[in-house]
């Protein structure tokens, strides 16, 4: 069965276009430390997607580095989508930068695919967005056609009869399944044509569901066979807000629950959806809807995230002004769920369980309540660790792998007080111990009082003066540290700052 004709509009390097970068300026967008998009100028110097920033900077030292901003990308792409919608409805956003439209209806109405493609291309180009349009059987082939068209006149039609021939010379890497295509490449299957000639059953047996999808795409079919189902079943989930909501946040929260409902309904029937339709209605009677690519891969949280992008985009564009009264999520094009293969030994499953627990705790206590520690640079015991909220990836501002002269020597204390409790340190005569500006100790410390407990000091060392950030008033710190052992076998890290002693850490 041949898939329906699809028209795909592709805006190259969208993350950079959305950020307003000139293609002639070398710039890259970073996603977790790797290049996820680059401008044409950067590409010309040898920068590629997937490179580390260090490598990209080696090719192009003056490259401008931008951070990923998915919400901004989605918001900016809304302008493109609204231009397309003037010509034909039912635009599906595959991801910001890539939109797909069923081509059959519009091409009949306007009199040919070439006419529709040209109209859409010119309309988008007219708004100063670089783009290319491809029309072919199925989204996958149309996407490749659009990419092929980009170097050409920006429009490429692949007739149904020659879809397989068009796909054949493309390398398998265009499938964007790095694990699978890595194996295929090593087996000598370099192009989609090579893959298409293999018997589908053997591919499925050897590579599982993912291999089956790859084979179907390579032969010019839809990624998943459509699921036969009773059309009267309502698989959508919707909510009417009793109190119309003004802010996006409560709607996004509701969207998460809706996505859960929708996934549960689909899951009961062993189905997945290719697209999800987000529909929002306002108190003044407006209703907007938009399709987002799903492919059975998105979690409820990811769906909610897309709802947030969409609502933000509509609001920024002034297309959704009133308070929200209802929100609806509907699965579009339902397919049989082939499931996901868990990796061997259940490691990945365990990670997923932990991720679920962490999210649950975040719902209970707030985003910053669950953290993962990361070593950072610093001299004091508390400065050497940053706690990064679960789900965030933040590189420490002060890297740990630099020399930090004056850093506490190993072993590190096992108990580090977030807020050092005050202490009193007395010498043998009972007078408080002081440290002069020249780092001399007034008398050997003999007694340590923390809270109500008094300890006899059996050994001590110091002072280790630290003077940090003298060039910055707010962070300036001048203190001296002591290590002290007491008669109960414990060791303490004491600090004196402005004549006041505190217990920074305990070696327990």
């Amino acid at each position: 069965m041949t898939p329906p004709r699809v028209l795909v509009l592709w805006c190259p390097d969208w993350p950079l276009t959305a950020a307003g970068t000139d293609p002639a300026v070398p710039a890259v967008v970073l996603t977790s430390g790797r290049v996820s998009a680059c401008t044409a100028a950067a590409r010309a110097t040898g920068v590629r997607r997937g490179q580390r920033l260090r490598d990209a900077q080696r090719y192009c030292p003056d490259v401008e580095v931008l951070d990923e901003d998915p919400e901004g990308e989605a918001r900016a792409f809304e302008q493109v989508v609204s231009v397309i919608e003037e010509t034909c409805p039912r635009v599906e956003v595959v991801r910001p930068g890539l939109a797909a439209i069923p081509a059959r209806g519009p091409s009949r109405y306007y009199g040919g695919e070439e006419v529709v493609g040209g109209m859409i291309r010119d309309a988008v180009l007219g708004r100063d967005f670089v783009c290319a349009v491809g029309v072919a059987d199925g989204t996958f082939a149309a996407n490749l056609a659009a990419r092929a068209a980009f170097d050409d006149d920006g429009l490429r039609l692949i007739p149904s009869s020659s879809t397989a021939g068009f796909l054949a010379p493309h390398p398998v890497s265009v499938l964007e399944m790095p694990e699978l295509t890595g194996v295929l490449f090593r087996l000598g299957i370099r192009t989609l044509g090579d893959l298409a000639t293999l018997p589908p059953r053997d591919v499925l047996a050897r590579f599982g569901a993912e291999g089956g999808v790859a084979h179907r795409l390579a032969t010019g079919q839809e990624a998943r066979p459509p699921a036969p189902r009773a059309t009267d079943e309502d698989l959508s989930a919707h909510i009417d807000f009793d109190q119309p909501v003004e802010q996006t946040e409560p709607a996004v929260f509701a969207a998460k629950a809706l996505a859960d409902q929708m996934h549960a309904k689909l899951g009961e029937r062993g189905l997945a959806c290719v697209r999800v339709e987000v529909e929002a209605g306002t108190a003044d009677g407006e209703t907007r809807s938009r399709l987002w690519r799903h492919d059975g891969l998105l979690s409820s949280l990811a769906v909610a995230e897309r709802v947030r992008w969409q609502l933000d985009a509509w609001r920024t564009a002034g297309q959704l002004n009133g308070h929200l009264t209802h929100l609806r999520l509907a699965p579009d094009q339902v397919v049989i769920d082939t499931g996901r293969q868990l990796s061997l030994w259940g490691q990945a499953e365990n990670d997923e369980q932990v991720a679920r627990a962490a999210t649950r705790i975040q719902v209970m206590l707030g985003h910053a309540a669950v953290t993962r520690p990361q070593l950072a640079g610093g001299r004091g015991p508390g400065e050497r660790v940053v706690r990064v909220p679960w789900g965030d990836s933040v590189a420490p501002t002060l890297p740990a792998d630099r020399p930090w002269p004056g850093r506490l020597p190993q072993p590190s204390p096992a108990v580090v007080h977030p807020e050092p409790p005050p202490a009193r340190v007395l010498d043998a005569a009972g007078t408080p111990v002081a440290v002069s500006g020249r780092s001399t100790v007034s008398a050997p410390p003999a007694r340590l009082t923390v809270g109500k407990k008094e300890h006899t000091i059996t050994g001590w060392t110091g002072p280790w003066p630290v003077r940090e950030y003298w060039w910055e008033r707010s962070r300036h710190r001048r203190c001296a540290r002591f290590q002290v052992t007491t008669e109960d076998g414990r060791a303490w890290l004491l600090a004196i700052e402005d004549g006041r002693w505190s217990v920074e850490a305990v070696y327990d």
Partner: protein
Amino acid sequence: MVAARRQRAAAALASVVDAQIEPVREDPGLPVLPALHGLLPGLRRGQVVEVDGTGALALALLAAPSQDGSWCGVVRMPELGVAAAAELGCNIDRLLLVDEPGERWVDVTAALLESADVVLLQPPARPPTGVVRRLVALARKSGSALVVAGGWEGSSLRLKVESSSWSGIDQGHGRLRSRRVKVVASGRMVGGRPRTAWLWLPGPDGSVSNADLASVASMEERLAARAAAVGGDDTEPTGDDATSPAEVA
């Protein structure tokens, strides 16, 4: 004819019985550092271990499981020394910290017990008996080990640091280098007889190792050999030493 058949069958059966059938091995549970083997062979899944204090001993229990790829949840311990944990051998990428769960610490611990392999908890001063029982049952059901830093009824093993002495520090000079501790394990799991072990926590090389007399002697030999090779004593941190504190201008 029938007799012959029966004979053959009997012979076949005998060969089956003779062949040593490998007993089905129990779930080995979670590993612990080799130095702790004298106290506990491993963390059994569903076990509750009580440790006195939030110090290095509790962190040492997390070292081997986290290196093995198990997730370790840590609840109510904002003072956890992450750098120390890393030095003792923990893989800190596998730590999940919930520092201040407030009143919800029971729910948080329960959520973590269901997913992480080890949960380290510092309970409030007197946890209600019902809560204790619920969490112990949950640990057993989910197959995670619960390590409690503080008082806890219903633990099957209690680890206590009985004595500890730091070395490397003197009156006004030196720096902390190593600590020798005596750890006593008691409770149901070791029967009526408490076990005792001497440990370096941490040792002069930063790791956890055995510190009974035999290994101390060999350690001293090794250190003496190293000192001889380096050619001098290096007790006092000096300004040019990268890890020593010095004034930073």
